């Protein structure tokens, strides 16, 4: 097999990962890293380097479309980015300190959690319980379009949300993924933001979070240009196509298919990590 064929195979796999990642809302990163490691036998560090680059591309590419709908909240996003970028720096630093096997095990656990979360996020808005003084002081509020007008919201449990965002950032830096599932958990479940606001703001934040680890990845040599190229272009093309056909797709069935794939990959990552094969 020559380089052209090899790059083409990686590119096609990345297109599929990006496509399914966009349709299910999980992102392409969570599936491309285990596929590169397990199927293409690529070292974990190179795999997370290539994935991180594709995460920046898809997040930034999709953001423009989300902004126009008026759901995302730049203040909440920017405030929480303080936590995610600090976490991402720590995560990227830890990659060199933790063995590939352990990173694989953590990756597997995050995959299993993402699969579970994708099947349980019903898309219902959380019940709001109380006014949060800190959120009011930090102006963490807004309004979003609902049927027949606009509805106001204010964030709750700001310190807890901030803490979970730090962990989301750390996982992003450690695993080269967007960790959108954890970000939505913080905003949706903990800070009680409306579902649409959580998902769109989270997407906006993913690129900035990933950019925080990118500098560290680059200087440590995790980013191989010839591998990052087909992964980035493939995932980007796949996710753009995925978001176009999203309205026509049988999302519920797809979620189950993708969740099954992710559970299988997560199980295999954990197995390979435990048996010391990564």
């Amino acid at each position, binding site marked *: 097999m020559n380089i052209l064929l090899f790059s083409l195979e990686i590119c096609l796999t990345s297109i599929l990962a990006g496509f399914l990642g966009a349709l299910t809302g999980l992102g392409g990163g969570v599936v491309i890293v285990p596929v590169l490691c397990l199927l293409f036998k690529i070292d974990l560090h*190179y795999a997370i380097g290539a994935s991180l680059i594709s995460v920046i591309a898809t997040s930034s590419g999709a953001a423009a479309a989300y902004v126009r709908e008026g759901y995302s909240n730049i203040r909440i996003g920017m405030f929480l980015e303080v936590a995610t970028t600090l976490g991402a720096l720590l995560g990227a630093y830890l990659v060199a300190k933790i063995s590939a096997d352990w990173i694989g095990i953590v990756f597997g656990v995050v995959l299993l959690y993402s699969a579970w979360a994708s099947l349980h996020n019903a898309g219902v808005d959380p019940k709001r319980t109380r006014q949060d003084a800190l959120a009011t002081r930090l102006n963490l509020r807004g309004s979003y379009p609902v049927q027949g007008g606009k509805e106001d919201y204010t964030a709750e449990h700001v310190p807890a949300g901030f803490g979970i965002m730090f962990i989301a950032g750390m996982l992003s830096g450690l695993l080269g993924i967007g960790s959108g599932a954890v970000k939505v958990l913080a905003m949706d479940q903990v800070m009680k933001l409306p579902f649409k606001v959580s998902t769109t703001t989270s997407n906006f934040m993913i690129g900035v979070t990933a950019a925080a680890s990118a500098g560290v990845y680059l200087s440590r*040599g995790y980013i191989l240009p010839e*591998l990052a190229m087909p992964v980035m272009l493939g995932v*980007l093309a796949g996710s753009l196509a995925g978001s176009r056909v999203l309205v026509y797709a049988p999302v519920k069935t797809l979620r189950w298919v993708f969740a099954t794939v992710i559970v299988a990959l997560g199980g295999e990552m954990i197995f390979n990590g435990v048996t010391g094969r990564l």
Partner: protein
Amino acid sequence: MPGNDQRLEIAMGLMLRVGVTVAALVVLAGGVLYLSQSSRPIPDYSHFHGAPAAYEHVTAILAGALRIESKSLIQFGILLLIATPISRVLFGVVGFTVMKDRLYAAVSAIVLIVLLLSFFTRR
């Protein structure tokens, strides 16, 4: 003022899209060049050796890209891609300052500093 917020967001979104498009085109150009030049067998990627120094540091990447070396060109496109969300945050610092929102101008500045820190940490 939600109207201004929305305008700032739309401008940020547009900037992101332009940045990604330009970066992807540069990566694609470098990729085509790389694939048209290489007929060697596939290097061993199963063990971590780290990328060559020419692809690790910004100045080295820029020098290689100027020589139209294919992999440096790809890496230069990747640098442009990384710069895209960073400029979005820079845009936030300016935007919030113009909107006289001191708190969020400061929050954006903190995020920007953390992002730049990433480029000044060494092994």
